[in-house]
């Protein structure tokens, strides 16, 4: 038989083979069982995505195009590709075989490259040797075969959708983007949304104006139908959600159509405004008719138990947006609000995950006395708000600071957007005899009311920028678009997508350093203002001396010269003071950094050394004593 030595060598050899095989096997064949410790559960599919994946009707083929070869020098993109691939694999694992994933490396001049381009992927330049980099996803529907199997090839009439480029800058929306692609591929038809608007939300094709971004975003998920309020007498049941934007001079017929739609269980979102800034109607037209650019639905609001004053605007100086004025200076505009997460309802699915909504010249909603409806606020101002006539806001467009004159906070949080729920009666009881008239909602009806229309305009939430990875890109400054999509999603019943919206960004800044910086900026600004005032006083004294010079001759000239000299001296001194202030403020931040470095690099190791020395000394003393 074999000697013990041979057996041991054999065992060593077997061990090597077994451990390599086990390592490779476990990586390859074991299903991912993981504990996601990230606070935002970044690597765990949200229940919304899981439901979308599980509800897939027909098999889908996903092709992830990633230029493996051209991205050797782009480690950031490579690690992002891994994140994308893992997410897709997780979705495939949960799809009961209805999702197939293929990863393709579209090498230059290959058929794969042609198919990537053909499917609408946008390549970016900057790969190794200047090659183009493809990094996008194409989803195609496959015919569902009898046995649930499919040949994996697209068939005629297949629906194909693509994510042209996975931009690492959009990582927080990664899951949403993919889930949206799957949702759209799975839906035979998009839900219908009706829009009644007196603002140019659809753009103007004649002038080459595109629809507003909110409408374009809605158009990706829904079939958006524009309804003409002048011809409206009934809203069809095919409309899942009705958006009424800035309703002005709506005919009774149109209002009745809306009234009955709501009572039938239809979903309405109404945007009214005490001052709509994109309303282009002349304030006084050729017939002398005055238009305040406000909108209201008084009859319907009364029926729903809601109060709204179209002549009143809410100011909130704590949430004032900083805007640039015509003279290049900047000022806080108390009628333009940037509401933060604190002012948004965390308990409502439509606003829970939003961080910021920008609004302008907003009104407020309240329940009428004796109303039986319930008003659930979605957005509120802070308690540092004040209500002023809309005219004051219109008059202070060039000087928003005027709105702060005599500002007196009401200590009241005004409701800017809300759900209103109740067993609404019809606002048109006189039509009771019409066939099919509904006098009262059967069970709870619900409408969502927003007291601003400007939040829909691009200027409040969209900026266009040149992205690092491609052509002109839209980026959102606030969640206004998400809010509208959330409303439509929620009301049209596809609430799965909702839970995936707006995951928190992985950016976690040093808040303490930022606070130091902010305090420093404030101190610097205060000092600057103080010094500027001082300079202004000197300057005015100087100009006072100007006319006196001519009258009093040379002696005044000498006085003026001295004053100018003094002024210049003071200006120099002030500039130095400002520099010193700035330097001192930066020094605070640097000093904090130095303290932290000292603690981590010097203090802790020193303590370990001291402990070691003390322990060693005690030991040697004990040993000596024993000896």
């Amino acid at each position, binding site marked *: 038989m074999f000697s*013990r*030595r041979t057996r*041991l*060598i054999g*065992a*060593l050899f077997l*061990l*090597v083979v*077994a*451990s*390599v095989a*086990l*390592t*490779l096997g*476990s*990586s*390859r064949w*074991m299903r*991912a*069982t*993981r*504990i*996601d*410790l*990230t*606070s*935002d559960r*970044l*690597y765990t599919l949200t229940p919304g995505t899981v439901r979308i994946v599980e509800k897939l009707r027909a098999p889908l083929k996903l092709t992830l195009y990633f230029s493996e070869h051209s991205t*050797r020098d782009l*480690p950031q993109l*490579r690690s992002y590709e891994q994140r994308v691939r893992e997410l897709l694999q997780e979705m495939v694992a949960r799809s009961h075989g209805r999702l197939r994933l293929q990863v393709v490396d579209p090498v230059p001049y290959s058929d794969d490259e042609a198919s990537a381009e053909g499917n609408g992927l946008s390549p970016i330049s900057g790969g190794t040797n200047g090659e183009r980099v493809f990094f996008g996803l194409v989803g195609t529907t496959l015919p569902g075969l009898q046995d649930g199997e499919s040949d994996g090839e697209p068939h005629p009439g297949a629906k194909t959708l693509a994510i042209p480029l996975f931009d690492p800058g959009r990582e927080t929306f990664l899951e949403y983007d993919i889930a949206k692609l799957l949702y759209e591929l799975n839906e035979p038809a998009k839900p219908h949304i009706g829009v009644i608007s007196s603002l140019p939300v659809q753009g103007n094709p004649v002038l080459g104006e595109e629809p507003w971004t909110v409408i374009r975003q809605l158009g990706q998920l829904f079939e958006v139908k524009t309804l003409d309020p002048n011809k409206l007498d009934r809203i069809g049941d095919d409309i899942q959600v009705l958006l009424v934007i800035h309703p002005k001079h709506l005919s009774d017929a149109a209002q009745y159509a809306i009234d009955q739609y709501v009572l039938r269980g239809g979903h309405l979102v109404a945007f009214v405004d005490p001052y709509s800034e994109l309303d282009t109607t002349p304030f006084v037209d050729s017939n002398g008719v005055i238009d305040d650019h406000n909108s209201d639905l008084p009859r319907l609001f009364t029926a729903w138990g809601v109060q709204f004053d179209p002549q009143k605007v809410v100011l909130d100086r704590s949430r004032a947006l900083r805007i640039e004025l015509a003279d290049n200076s900047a000022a806080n505009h108390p009628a333009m609000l940037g509401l933060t997460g604190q002012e948004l309802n965390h308990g409502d699915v439509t606003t829970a995950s939003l961080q910021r909504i920008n609004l302008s010249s907003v009104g407020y909603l309240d329940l009428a006395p004796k109303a039986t409806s319930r008003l659930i606020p979605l957005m509120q101002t802070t308690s540092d708000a004040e209500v002023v006539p809309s005219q004051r806001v219109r008059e202070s467009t060039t000087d928003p600071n005027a709105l702060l004159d005599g500002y007196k906070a009401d200590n009241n949080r005004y409701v800017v957007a809300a759900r209103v729920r109740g067993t609404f009666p019809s606002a048109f009881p006189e039509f009771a005899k019409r066939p099919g008239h509904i006098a009262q909602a059967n069970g709870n009806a619900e409408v969502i009311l927003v007291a601003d229309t400007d939040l829909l305009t691009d200027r409040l939430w969209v900026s266009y920028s040149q992205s690092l990875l491609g052509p002109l890109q839209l980026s959102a400054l606030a969640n206004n678009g998400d809010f509208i999509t959330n409303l439509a999603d929620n009301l049209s019943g596809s609430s799965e997508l909702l839970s995936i919206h707006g995951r928190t960004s*992985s*950016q*976690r*800044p*040093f*808040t*303490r*350093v*930022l606070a130091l910086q902010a305090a420093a900026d404030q101190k610097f600004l205060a000092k600057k203002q103080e010094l500027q005032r001082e300079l202004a006083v000197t300057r005015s004294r100087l100009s006072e001396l100007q006319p006196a010079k001519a009258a009093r001759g040379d002696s005044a000239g000498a006085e003026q010269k001295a004053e100018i000299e003094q002024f210049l001296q003071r200006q120099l001194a002030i500039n130095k003071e400002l520099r010193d202030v700035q330097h001192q403020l930066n020094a605070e931040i640097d000093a904090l*950094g130095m303290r*932290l*470095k000292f*603690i*981590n*690099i010097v*203090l*802790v*190791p020193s303590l*370990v*050394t001291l*402990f*070691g020395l003390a*322990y*060693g000394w005690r*030991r040697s003393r004990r040993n000596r004593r024993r000896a």
Partner: protein
Amino acid sequence: MSPVMAVARRELRSYFVTPVAYVFLVIFLVLAGILTFYAGDFYDRGQADLQPFFVMHPWLYLLLAPAVSMRMWAEEAKGGTLELLLSLPMTIAQAMLGKFLAAWLFMGIGLLLTLPVWITVNYLGSPDNGVILASYVGSWLMAGAFLAIGACLSAVTQSQVVAFILTMVVCFLLLLAGQPQVMDFLQGSMPRKLLNGVAHLSLLRHFEAIARGVLDLRDLLYFLLCIASWLTAGVLVLDLKRTP
């Protein structure tokens, strides 16, 4: 007390009776601090996470783990105490496990002493502490893998220096496997499947996967398998050396 725990206790105590343990700990802490704050630009990048700290760990361990593990068996063999140890009423496996546990706990103490970095980042902002916890787990597992490799290679030779260098080379290779540069280099000379296999053996890849904040059973299993295999190999090597 089980023989494993007895050995672990004795070994751990032996670390602290000589200045060596303190020197190791101080070097580890100073290097970790300098690399995090200067090479990793921890403060100036202004992000409340410990990525610059953990990203340096594999390279720190590459230096320190072989230094801790080199004396494990090589010293016993050279000093002639190996035979004495093996004559005690316990198996080689128990002795191996005890020694390994002591070294692993020692590295764990080193890691625990870096907690001021964690306090610092929590003082500066609100980091994702789940990710930090996962990174600590990943880092300690990686230290364990390095030490297990060191334990085996320390059994191979009588010279501590040779054990140190061997361990460093093996750990370095395991770190490099799966790195994009290495994969690119090997791309032409290897079939794709084999290449993927090499990538799966990479220590760094599994550590990075855990440090993202996800404890994947496959990554945990990789480290445990790695530790178990190298320790078993060490036991076989010791047995082989004892067998005439």
